[in-house]
């Protein structure tokens, strides 16, 4: 009796494409070949319906998310708007880092420094070429950060594990010193002040017609989230594409990836560069939201916070990146306010925020070692795999009986 080969329970990767549509047909002969990758229909397969195309689905979902953010910003207080603006500059950086670490398996303790490159490019451009459109400034920030990221990435591609961590750590520690050394151009300890982008009159009146008054807080949060969602959209497409599969292959087994024809060095440098570009967006928005680029904002604590955010959220998960960013923004404030409410003085209340942060990190690692999103997803997939196995076993016994 030959056993028909079934879906391997160890690799229950449902692709976005087979979303529910094939689950009804478990009892029929299981597909022997792997599911075709999204975006590239297998030869002979029917072209996918328009709405099921990855790009279209991602586009619609992200556009919906942006609309949700606009409504959300309207519904909440100015302070919450400011907090969301803050979260908006963490999201691209954390998302970029989670792709680098979770999908490609490279660690970086230097993303805070890469954000600094983006922030200083923004501040320097605005200071020396006043009136430059924000879009141009943003593109310049991305460009310089990408260049720095590519250079670091080439070095990083040759290093592994603790050596890579050490090299990027050096970046995080050393780079702020540049702002102090070139004090005349970069403003030293005090940094460079940034005038944040303002809405054009046309946009302002357009917005006023639909929602009402557009405050500065709201506008900057809106810009930040538009960029954050754009970054998430691009990253999500990238990691479900061939490039993303290459990155995963390199992460899981370099030798196997090489045998499959993947240029490992190129793949790793590309991942680092993409991730750096995201940090550039984040740095540019940080400068716009805090209205300042100063070395004090880019301490090693920032880089480590970003890393903690992806670990808590779940390595490699973009949803996890959003959750992790939310944690960075809301946890200190909630904990400090709670402490103050319990009668602690302001100094004691301020000191429990880092403590709780550490405890959360430890507890997540103990209880949910794949991060919040990673663990939930794992549970879900385990259940699904078990069901499929049961269904398969049932079908088999029926056949024999």
């Amino acid at each position, binding site marked *: 009796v030959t056993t028909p080969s079934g879906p391997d329970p160890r690799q229950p*990767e*449902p*692709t*976005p494409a087979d*979303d529910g549509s094939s689950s009804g047909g478990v009892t029929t002969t299981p597909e022997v070949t792997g599911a075709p990758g999204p975006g590239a229909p297998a030869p002979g397969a029917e072209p996918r319906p328009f709405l099921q195309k990855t790009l279209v689905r991602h586009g619609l*979902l*992200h556009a919906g*998310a942006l609309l*949700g*953010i606009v*409504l*959300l910003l309207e*519904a909440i*207080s*100015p*302070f*919450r708007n*400011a907090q*969301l603006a*803050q979260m908006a500059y963490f999201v691209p950086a954390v998302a970029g880092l989670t792709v680098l670490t979770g999908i490609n398996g490279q660690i970086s303790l230097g993303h805070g420094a890469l954000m600094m490159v983006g922030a200083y490019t923004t501040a320097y451009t605005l200071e020396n070429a006043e009136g430059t459109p924000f879009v141009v400034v943003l593109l310049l920030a991305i460009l310089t950060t990408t260049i720095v990221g590519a250079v670091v990435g080439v070095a990083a591609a040759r290093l592994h594990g603790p050596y890579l961590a050490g090299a990027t750590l050096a970046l995080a520690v050393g780079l*702020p*010193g540049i702002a*102090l*050394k070139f*004090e005349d151009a970069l403003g*030293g*300890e*005090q*940094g460079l*002040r940034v*005038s944040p982008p303002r809405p054009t009159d046309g946009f302002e009146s357009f917005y006023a017609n639909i929602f009402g008054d557009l405050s500065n*807080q709201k506008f900057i949060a809106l810009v930040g989230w538009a960029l954050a969602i754009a970054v*998430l959209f691009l990253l*999500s497409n990238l990691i*479900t594409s061939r490039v993303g599969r290459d990155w*995963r292959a390199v992460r899981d087994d370099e030798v196997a990836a090489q045998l499959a024809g993947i240029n490992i060095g190129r793949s790793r440098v590309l991942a680092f560069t993409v991730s750096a570009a995201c940090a550039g967006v984040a740095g540019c928005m*940080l400068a716009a*939201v*805090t*209205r*300042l680029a*100063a070395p*004090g*904002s880019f*301490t090693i*604590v*920032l880089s480590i916070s970003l890393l903690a955010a992806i670990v808590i959220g779940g390595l490699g*998960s973009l*949803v996890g990146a*959003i*959750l992790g960013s*939310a944690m960075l923004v809301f946890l200190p*404030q909630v904990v400090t306010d709670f402490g103050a409410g319990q009668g602690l*003085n*302001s*100094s004691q209340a*301020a000191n429990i*925020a*880092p403590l709780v942060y550490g405890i959360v990190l430890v507890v997540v690692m103990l209880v949910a070692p794949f991060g919040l999103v990673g663990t939930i*997803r794992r549970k879900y997939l385990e259940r699904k795999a078990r069901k499929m196995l049961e269904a398969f076993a049932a079908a088999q016994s029926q056949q024999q009986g």
Partner: protein
Amino acid sequence: MFRSRPFTRTVVALAGASLFLTACGGDDNGGSGGGGVGGDATGVTDTSIKIGTHMPLTGPAAPGYSEIPTGAKAYFDYVNAQGGINGREVEYIVRDDAYNPSNTTTVVNQLVLQDEVFAILGGLGTPTHSAVLDFLNEEEVPDLFVSSGATAWDEPDRYPWTFGYQPDYVVEGKIIGQFIQENFPDAQVGLYLQGDELGRDGAEGVKAIIEDQIVAEVTYVVTDTSVRPQMQQLQSAGADLVVGFNVPGFTARQRGAAGELGYNPTYITSNVGSDANLVGTLIAGASQGAVTPEQAAAVLDGTYTTSYLPTNDQPDDPWVQFFQEVWDEHGDGGALSNYRIYGMMQAYLFTTAALAAGEDLTREAIVEAIQSDGSSWKGPWLAPLGFSEDSHRGVTGAKIVKLEGGAAVDQTPVYTTTEEADSEIEEVTEEPGEPTEDGLPDVG
């Protein structure tokens, strides 16, 4: 590994987040309390005034500086116990920014938009406060008595809501320069500077008076772990008088490096870097128990520095006695440090301004009161305040003192001047104020 549909989940998560945020956000964008016609009375009720500040309560800048708000709070508690300011109790909210400008933006947003404070009092630090300068002035929130000696706070045209507090570093430098000119006319002066506004402005002041006596100028950045190369440079240039514009940690490093080099010049250290207790604690910490903080503090014996407020080594000063009483009654333990006196004086100055603004306290009224009457207010500050329509400078001068056995011995009268290089340095003839019977400022 585990690929998924992040996008479905993105939306679900955002929807969830929006519910959460809406639930705890509230729509409290109202603002103006019972102000009436006199302007914006956000944060003021008939029985309370809410003010806020940003301070480093955690992180490397916290030792020392985190004591400032405890001093201010003790004085406000004292005022509240006396019935408050025109019947209004002061609620003083301190938020931690860990000396990180990004955090400063966050906590000041919270103070202004969520806590809806009436004013920000004594936000600490040049880089940190720079981050919120535009925001506070756009929102038209009084930004009073910034805890930093940068000259940026005195720009009434650009920042009409921001007021300085301590003498700026240019003024301090000029007074030090004049002291050298009169007492050490033959000295070869070396400058030891922090690589930011502190060092730059201080040097500008000193050079305005004694440019020709300066033989060397060295700069450190706060990430330097040793300043031995800098001290060596001063030594080989033959400097026998070293003027430092630096923070306390770099006073400790400076003395350590000079000791190693067998270099023993006369030192003049700016007010910021000369807190003997803190420098002593830092040196003792670095020695890992080899010396006690008290022994280490003796390193500063013979150092000249400037002073613009009474200090805790003058137990006979009426202000120090008064602040000691306030601290004993309302403090949270510990000794009355000079940082706490600094905070109390700040709170005293705010109380003066709020009283002068009158019964109908509004944001406009307090700014108006400071501009029109501020220069005549009396208090613990040694030199007069520089407030007017065209000037938002705080204390305008200082005196030179010598540290001897834990006490500061006066070397000069109190001088006052402005930051223009050629303006006169004048002796202050009026006496500083005395504490009143009830300890509340008397604004007439």
